[in-house]
């Protein structure tokens, strides 16, 4: 193989690839990125961790000899990063080595044969639809903070995607860690009808979100089966992200979304966030609980720490139900408030031990449920 690529293009592709490649690998080939130069002047760059695979095609400056090889993803990325801006990088293989040349630099890297490189077998992906990049980004942002990191509840380690018939057909995304739940609803895209329920793993969600950062106003094509999902991002080059789906059953989360919470609290999400953040300063790692005292048109936030003393702050609010106190994990509250864009946030409360529903308003596509702390 011999090909020459613009350093900027190579660097961008490798940054996508190296992020999929795990830092520590027991199988050597999984540390490598696959480079494949074809006669039509394109170079394909691919990386995998066996569950997630990214493939990107870019136009080379030139392809002298078509061929394919694998080299260490992190090594090549670090080299590309340090090469001078605007340079052209030549990649040439010979004798189980790949020579990287740019300007006056020359590197000779060990390689592994392309035939050893594992590919995810996509199989049939019968469901196909498209979502605008911006909507998909919002769907991820509104939900992913609630994804569980607890590996023993692996079926919560991702975003649950499913369709439903309500007043109109919808596509819903949900994530929960057992303490809080985030749900995002959008009109069902054409082609999504009859799709299987799927759980997209956290890592795939993270990589997709990074790639969406670079996508402009395009539509993202999604193809899926009950076992695999593929995201195709167009753009000048074309990136395809394929992931295995989590093989598990997401719990019936709809039953924990409260419907009869009758105490409505409305306040400004920014001053609420800042107030929680301020009083939580003294909370120690073990007791991140913030107590909210609700009174007529006023919320008093307070934290008591056995080591660090006490803190309190009053936040103006719109509240007319009976006075009571309720506690929440400060970080959980902040995670949710950070996702509220408008000037008001609604908290629908019942009692200090019942789930609280949080949303911007009844038209907002995002909805959150937060379980209190006993304080």
């Amino acid at each position, binding site marked *: 193989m011999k090909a020459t690529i613009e350093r900027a293009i190579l660097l961008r592709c490798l940054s996508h690839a190296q992020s999929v490649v795990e830092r520590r690998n027991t199988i050597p080939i999984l540390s490598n990125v696959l480079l494949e130069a074809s006669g039509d002047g394109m170079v394909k760059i691919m990386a995998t961790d066996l569950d997630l695979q990214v493939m990107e095609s870019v136009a080379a400056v030139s392809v002298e000899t078509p061929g394919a090889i694998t080299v260490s993803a992190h090594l090549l990325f670090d080299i590309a990063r340090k090469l001078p801006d605007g340079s052209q990088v030549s990649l040439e293989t010979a004798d189980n080595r790949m020579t990287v040349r740019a300007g006056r630099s020359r590197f000779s890297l060990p390689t592994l044969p392309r035939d050893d490189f594992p590919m995810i077998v996509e199989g049939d992906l019968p469901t196909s639809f498209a979502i605008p990049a911006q909507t998909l980004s919002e769907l991820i942002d509104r939900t992913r903070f609630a994804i569980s990191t607890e*590996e*023993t509840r692996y079926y919560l380690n991702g975003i649950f995607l499913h369709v439903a018939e309500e007043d109109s057909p919808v596509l819903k995304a949900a994530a929960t860690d057992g303490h809080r*739940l985030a749900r995002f609803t959008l009109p069902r895209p054409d082609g999504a009808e009859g799709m299987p329920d799927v759980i997209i793993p956290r890592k795939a969600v993270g990589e997709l979100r990074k790639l969406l950062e670079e996508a402009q106003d395009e539509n993202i094509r999604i193809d899926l089966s009950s076992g695999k999902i593929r995201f195709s991002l167009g753009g000048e080059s074309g990136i395809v992200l394929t992931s295995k789906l989590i093989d598990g059953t997401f719990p019936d989360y709809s039953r924990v979304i409260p419907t009869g919470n009758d105490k409505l609290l409305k306040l400004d999400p920014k001053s609420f966030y800042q107030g929680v953040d301020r009083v939580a300063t003294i909370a120690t790692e073990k007791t991140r609980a913030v107590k909210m005292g609700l009174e007529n048109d006023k919320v008093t936030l307070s934290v008591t720490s056995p080591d660090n003393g006490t803190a309190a702050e009053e936040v103006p609010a719109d509240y007319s139900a009976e006075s009571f106190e309720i506690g929440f994990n400060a970080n959980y509250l902040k995670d949710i408030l950070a996702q509220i864009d408008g000037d008001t946030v609604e908290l629908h409360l019942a009692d200090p031990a019942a789930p609280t529903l949080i949303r911007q308003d009844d038209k907002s596509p995002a909805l959150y449920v937060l*379980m209190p*702390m*006993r304080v």
Partner: protein
Amino acid sequence: MAQQAPHPHVESGDTEPEAQGLRKIIHVDMDAFFASVEQRDNPHLRGKPVAVGGSSGRGVVAAASYEARPFGVRSAMPSVKAARLCPDLIFCPPRFDRYREVSEQIRAIFHHYTPQVEPLSLDEAYLDVTDDLHGIGSATRIAQLIRERILKETQLTASAGVSYNKFLAKLASDQNKPDGLCVIRPGEGARFVAGLPVSRFHGVGPRGAEKMAVLGIETGADLAARDIAFLREHFGSFADYLYRAARGIDLRPVRANRVRKSIGGERTFADDLSSGPALRAALDDIVEIVWERITRKEGHGRTVTLKLKFSDFRLITRARSLSRPVENREEFARVALTLLTDALPLPLPVRLMGLTLSGLEREQSAEKSPPEKVQLRLL
């Protein structure tokens, strides 16, 4: 009535009896506890070989009735093996809630005689009766009264050992089992230990006994004949314990409010293991044994630690903590397997594998301590 001096050697009240003078320690151990409870509650099981534990797959025997023991059935033995040794063995699924109830009854009896009670598990405890609350006059008499009351109130038998430290009291309770009593008096400890095979020492397993046999150590007397340097050379950190134990010395106090920090178990393999399937099978066995122990000792912990000792004696540990206590055996097994899988491939064959659950929380103490801030669960 004036309190009697516990022993003439204790001269004044300002000396710490645990460190200075002679103490009076009783070790009470229920006989085949789980199996006996089952036989008591189910008359058709009486007089028959009974094992409490799962009979299928990788289940282990949690307790075996005395009728099953002549066949070689022992606790912690794989159920499959037990069924082979004793074809008529009747398996009962464990009813831990029931055992806990009975255990509460027994502990109430202990507390009548002394507040200094250190439960080791549901079915055994150390009691320090140096202070004779009821003026009964002798620790042996107290042990006898406790055994009688246990029999009267629970229709179950207990064995008791009486001595001047925990190590000897435990050896003594094991001496005349079942339904037995044994006393090791001051001055008799070293002689008693001298005649025992080393395998009776707590902490000396089959592999340990084998190793000692190779070194020509078979009894407590053999062990006592070796100096501390020799023991340290061969047994490392275990040497100090062996040295003291061989002389019948044990200064550990009975700790009434002992909060157990971890529960675990390990196994040394007859042949070093290297293949993934063999390691996973061994892990399954250890999970069974340790989980049974966790249930028996009422442990609730968040951290699972896997210990692996390689053929070159190098030791590694891998741990994982959950955000809440491990809920059940399946979850414990799953975390353990994840730890093992993450450690693969291993650089060398494994000679010892162990699992520990730590970060223990006691349900009881959680109730008594001031209300903690608890995140409530949604799902």
